[in-house]
């Protein structure tokens, strides 16, 4: 059944409904692909029974003539940040070793209600802190892509949703959930030549998702193309009383309104995103993207987002600050790891547990966050960052006066080799330079494949839209997709 694994979400949904194949055949095909892809280390837990049960339910619904959900018969991968009832969830951290949630996250519950099944839990950067998937406590995810130089250096799948990106790109699942705090859907999608959208903050409930930085965290889909993203986002999103920041708005039918016709749309090109030292391949990609959007009928205008250079340092105050607060809950008392040295008291147990359970990057960010929130430093760092964040959001508000959407590269480079940046936290942080500003402003943004670089590796283009205009973002993504003709896929070596 290997050819069924070449199908995306829409094709599977439609094929199951039409009776071209059964959902069970689809599930079995992907289950085999997952089982045969251990060298990628994309899955932390495999859940074939979950996928098969959902498939059988879809097949039965079709046979009975019962209503079928928007994702009926589609098996997906679930980032390990989402709590899944009865299925181990660790956020790729040793401190959640052995944690089996007794409840289901809202996003995953929405997907199951739409008829999707779960192939397994996907590896990621520990607590979603990383841009290369190298901070997982359970080993690196290896990108299915290789440079065409024949060197076979293992490449980063991007991060933090690196298991998701690798799995979709390698045809282990037609779609996967991701989460994006500063680019964790878009950058990995760009690195492996797939699409991914971070919706407006508040579209997807954060309830049951392991928290990193609560004012930034948003779930979103990662899939082969724009239509598949529209379908899957529609299944994930929706108002949830259990998340105080959930937006009380209906979920638009994004798929039904997809259109690559951009007549009358103005696309802004932010001049501050032309950073020094940007590779020629990225410059050329951006120019191609501009030409494609013009061809789709859009008008191109130059805009300015003057506080762009302050977005990354702002992010690296706010995100660690929120993380240090969120991760205070891991204390060895209620769930996960406990390290109780001989004769230790409660405080010693907290400190020993957190030293043993958190990885180096997580500890580093908790320390930074603790410092910037501590008495005497709070105003100089945290309050200042919150004010600059206001200015960054205001930059976007000003830009929307002269354009409808923004086009930028997704990342400043193609995928790098594992180990290439892991020794220098700052070099790694700089990878998110184009994705972080829209995260700070809570805006919908997506990455779509734009082509290959000289090494034969995928490059992504990012579209950013005003709050709640996922439709505009998806439509511009579709316009690029229709013109980029991106069909490259990694050769199977695993």
């Amino acid at each position: 059944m290997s050819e069924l694994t070449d199908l995306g979400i829409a094709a599977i949904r439609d094929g199951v409904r039409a009776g071209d194949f059964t959902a069970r055949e689809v599930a079995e095909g992907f289950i085999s692909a997952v089982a045969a892809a251990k060298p990628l280390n994309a899955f932390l837990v495999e859940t074939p029974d979950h996928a098969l049960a959902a498939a059988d339910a879809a097949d039965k619904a079709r046979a009975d003539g019962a209503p079928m959900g928007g994702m009926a018969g589609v098996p997906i991968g679930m980032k390990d940040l989402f709590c899944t009832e009865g299925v181990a969830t660790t956020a790729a951290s040793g401190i959640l070793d052995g944690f089996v949630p007794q409840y289901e996250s809202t996003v995953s519950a929405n997907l199951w209600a739409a008829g999707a099944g779960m192939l397994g839990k996907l590896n990621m950067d520990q607590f979603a802190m990383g841009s290369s998937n190298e901070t997982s406590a359970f080993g690196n995810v290896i990108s299915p892509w290789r440079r065409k130089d024949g060197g076979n250096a293992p490449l980063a799948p991007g991060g933090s949703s690196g298991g998701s990106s690798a799995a979709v790109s390698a045809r282990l699942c037609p779609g996967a959930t991701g989460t994006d705090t500063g680019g964790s859907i878009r950058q990995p999608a760009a690195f492996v030549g797939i699409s991914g959208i971070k919706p407006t903050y508040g579209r997807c409930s954060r309830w049951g998702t392991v928290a990193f930085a609560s004012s930034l965290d948003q779930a979103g889909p990662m899939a082969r193309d724009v239509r598949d993203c529209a379908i899957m986002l529609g299944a994930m999103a929706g108002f949830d009383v259990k998340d105080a920041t959930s937006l009380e708005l209906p979920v638009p039918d994004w798929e039904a309104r997809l259109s690559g016709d951009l007549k009358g749309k103005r696309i802004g090109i932010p001049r501050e995103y032309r950073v020094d030292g940007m590779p020629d391949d990225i410059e050329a990609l951006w120019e191609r993207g501009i030409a494609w959007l013009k061809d789709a009928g859009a008008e191109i205008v130059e805009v300015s987002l003057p506080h762009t250079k302050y977005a990354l340092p702002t992010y690296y105050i706010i995100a660690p600050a929120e993380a240090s607060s969120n991760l205070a809950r891991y204390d060895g008392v209620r769930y996960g790891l406990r390290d109780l040295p001989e004769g230790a008291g409660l405080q010693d147990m907290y400190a020993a547990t957190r030293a043993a359970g958190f990885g180096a990057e997580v500890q580093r960010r908790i320390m930074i966050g603790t410092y910037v929130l501590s008495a005497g430093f709070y105003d100089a760092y945290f309050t200042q960052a919150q004010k600059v964040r206001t200015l960054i959001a205001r930059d976007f508000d000003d830009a929307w006066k002269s354009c409808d959407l923004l086009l930028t590269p997704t990342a400043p480079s193609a995928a790098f080799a594992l180990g290439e940046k892991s020794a220098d936290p700052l070099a790694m942080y700089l990878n998110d330079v184009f994705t972080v500003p829209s995260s700070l402003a809570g805006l919908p943004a997506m990455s779509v494949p734009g082509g290959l670089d000289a090494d034969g590796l995928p490059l992504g283009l990012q579209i950013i839209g005003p709050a709640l205009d996922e439709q505009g973002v998806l439509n511009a993504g579709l316009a690029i997709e229709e013109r980029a003709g991106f069909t490259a896929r990694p050769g199977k070596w695993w």
Partner: protein
Amino acid sequence: MSLLGGAGATHACVLFLMHREAGASRACMSVDTATVRKIASLARIRIDDAQAEALVPELNNILGWIEQLGEVDVTGVEPMTAVIPNHLRLRDDVVTDGNVRDKVLANAPQAEHGFFTVPKVIE
């Protein structure tokens, strides 16, 4: 666990604020091993002396970089508190969950008699 309390204002911070008010773009903040140990203690993460030494340049590298925010003029700018305008909802004052003690305790490293169990805290 409080992660917010504890550290008093240091000389370095006061200097930093003075510089900012004077419009200086480079601040003077840096941590030493004592400060790193203090942060680790506030964060309830056990570190040994070698780790404290190693963290000093790592944290200073990051802090030196984020300090560029000090050069931004934020006069009259409110700190962001909600990224998308939203209102906090009130719900009916009724019980919506509970009676799930076994589920709450299911993942506890140690639980006895329906309670979480921790090392003795009172002698």
